[in-house]
């Protein structure tokens, strides 16, 4: 791109430069923080579950970014295939976790007629 145009409009300059690992890390950080906030704020049990999914996805973005052959600088060390395989395992375990958490939520709903996690205080000491 013409450097004078790039310097005039910073966003366009950003568009013309290649993506690095740090870009992906920023996306992963935003997903992770959204998930943590979601887990902390939501009172609906399913909202808490969605927060967990977001957190796992943020971690997955980081794994894939570090494993990516496209994003490595010259001579940089990459996680290689290991990162992608770990991301796959995370996806599978997230599916398992979602199934169990959903079953527990439905059971809780059957017994208490609500999904508000603040009402789940029967075991309070």
């Amino acid at each position, binding site marked *: 791109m013409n450097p004078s145009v790039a310097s005039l409009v910073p966003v366009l300059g950003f568009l013309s430069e290649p993506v690095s690992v740090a870009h992906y890390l920023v996306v992963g950080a935003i997903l992770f923080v959204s998930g943590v906030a979601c887990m902390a704020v939501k009172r609906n049990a399913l909202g808490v579950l969605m927060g967990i999914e*977001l957190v796992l996805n943020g971690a997955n973005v980081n794994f894939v970014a570090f494993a990516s052959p496209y994003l490595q600088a010259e001579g940089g060390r990459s996680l290689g295939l290991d990162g992608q395989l770990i991301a796959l395992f995370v*996806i599978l375990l997230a599916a398992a976790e979602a199934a169990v958490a959903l079953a527990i939520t439905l059971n809780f*709903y059957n017994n208490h007629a609500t999904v508000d996690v603040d009402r789940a205080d029967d075991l309070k000491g």
Partner: protein
Amino acid sequence: MMAFVSGPTAVIEPLLGLGLALPVAGVNWHTFFFLLFAAVACGFAVAVVAADNVVRMALYLVLSLGATAGLFFLAGAEFVGAMQLMIYVGGTLVLLVFGVMLTAQAPFVSIKGSAGDRVLAGVVGAVLLAVLLQAALSVPAWRRPASGHVGQPAATPIGMALVGVRVDEPDPAAPAKNRRSGYLLPFEIVSVHLLVVLVGAAYLARAKRRKTPRAIEVAASVEPAASVAEHAAIGRDRPRGASVLAGGRS
């Protein structure tokens, strides 16, 4: 600038004007689509936190995870991106949406937290985000742009790694302790784990058909509450007693 005149921009230029048409020629499309998918993923992730309605949260989560799959494709992880779409968006989230539909009675569709909690979570989240961004941007090696090295499609090496053979080994002649390990054992553990978990989930969420005389008597004695509970109950299970019903409805 003269170089841009030949090409598609020569047609667009008179229509859009100089300022809009010129930059198109210099755009790195990888970066463009990265920014597109990243904006969708992050924007809808924040929308999940901001939304109160649980049905909308589920929709925003679908869009956010779908855009994340796009990011995986852009990073060269085609297989992981496809699995993300099929397992996550196609499986896990459908499960979640079923959960939302089964429990989305009017009082529970939007349960609001207190304003103080939201402010506190916002502050803590902002601090956590600042720490993570500082860590992400502080390593120079992670900020260097890509070398343009093009990797091989990864489906075959992933499949071989899952049965315990690494075909992406940089040095096959290296001694065993320096070689990369296969993933046969984790693969088996995850398969059995998934089976056990799904059987357990089916057991936990099963419809209970057993009707004790006590439950029928309670259901008959509190008629309005029982109709609500009947509406709410999954399967044919009655809530355990009148006190639980009264507490649950407030």
